[in-house]
């Protein structure tokens, strides 16, 4: 299985890794089949994502998608964040092998859990 340079870059130098002080939403989702976990924390100011942080456990695609997602969210309005697709996450992660698409799905679900929390 060959991974792209962008993908490996996410893996060795993840963007926005860690926890977030004063987060407005913090969610953790897991893939019940393989046990992968992704935690996402967002701080929102004036309808925009001011800061996004992630933590991830699992196969490299899950780590890369967490990094890609947290990296792209910062600066987005909540509307823009709601329009992020799985394909966007996959692309930002540097591409995923066909069998690893579930990693982007986990990132997508985690994002929507966080957005749901922000709406309530």
């Amino acid at each position: 299985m060959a991974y792209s340079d962008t993908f490996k870059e996410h893996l060795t130098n993840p963007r926005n890794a860690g926890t977030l002080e004063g987060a407005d939403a913090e969610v953790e989702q897991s893939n019940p089949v393989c046990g992968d976990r992704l935690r996402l924390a967002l701080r929102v100011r004036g309808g925009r994502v001011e800061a996004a942080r992630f933590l991830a456990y699992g196969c490299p695609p899950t780590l890369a998608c967490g990094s890609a997602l947290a990296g792209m969210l910062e600066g987005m309005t909540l509307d823009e964040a709601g329009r992020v697709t799985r394909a966007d996450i996959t692309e930002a992660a540097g591409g995923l092998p066909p069998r690893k698409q579930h990693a982007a799905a986990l990132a997508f679900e985690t994002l929507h859990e966080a957005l749901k929390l922000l709406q309530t």
Partner: protein
Amino acid sequence: MRRVYLDHSATTPVDPRVVEAMLPFLTAKFGNPSSVHFYGQEARAAVDRARREVAGLVGARPNEVVFTSGGTESNNLAVRGHCEQNAEHGRHVITTAIEHSSVRGICEALERRDWEVTRLPVYGEGVVRVEDVRAALRPETVLVTVMLANNEIGTVQPVAEIAALVRERREAGQKFLRLHTDAVQAASGMRVDVDELGCDLLSMSAHKLYAPKGVGALYVRRGVRLAPQNIGGHQERERRGGTEAVPLVVAFGEAARLTRLELEERAERVRRLRERFEAGVESRVSDIVHNGDRVRRLPGVSNISFRFIEGEGLLINLDMQGVAVSTGSACSSGSLEPSPVIRALGRDDELARGSIRFSLGKDTTEEEIDYVLEVLPRAVDNLRRLSPLYQKAQGPRACTPA
């Protein structure tokens, strides 16, 4: 970039002396060993010489050695060949929970054809217990197949003791019962002797012994009959049809000769380096678990689970720093389940997913080990800082008064 290869259980680099021995058989000495003319006889002599060397490595007679395309084919010929040959005498096989995927797959295929298979546990140490074999033996058992050394954790199985049981049963009248052992991993790290082991069938692979991929052998004790799996010409005494892969067979012969001569020295060297490696990891990385019995194992294999992280992420991090290892995580194998071998030790999914196999070779150096000890703790730390499992575990620790 500096590169360190610590994946010798997967395959080994080809020894230049082996390359030199095989080269003439890729050029001038191209004959077919079945041909009667000069070219054929030259090739025949080379195959015979190689057969003597491979037999010599395991204490067998040359005519008990069947050349194959590798370990997987040897295992197929042994297990399927024996079972097909003896189906009328019983349809029960005893194996272990930690066999190589080839033996595992063959056993599953047998079950689909109404065979019964008993898979013995290996407990926390990764070693089968002889009393479990005794308890599993039935009048209709025709084969016991137990690997000599495991490919992931390197643990050495009590094959000689199991052979004694099998022999006892055979002498008591169960004359079709045989013992097969997969020695593909073992041959590079320990002395293997078919009479000391008392096995009837023994699988070998050349590319674990510094020869090229594509050639292996099956030892078949005199008097043991197998249903051939490759039907063709009269090669290999009708046990495996097909023109012999002369250059590869010659390479295997030379590799076997060198292994026989250098085995002790190689084993001692890698054992010392592995001790240095494991001591280094223990002093630099927290929350690790060694997999497999620390004593009963091959000298060059170290299998370690790193808590809170997943193996393939660590593998890629190490690879980006030039260090090649392998992992029991599900990601790597393409399946959803992590390594059945690590799971068979009773480890939970997290530990199975976080397992890494470091396998040293005859040319591994102290400097290489020290380089790995420098980059490994950083790579583990990087991934742990990303891990929600690690953060959770750190929470309570941080609160514990010193």
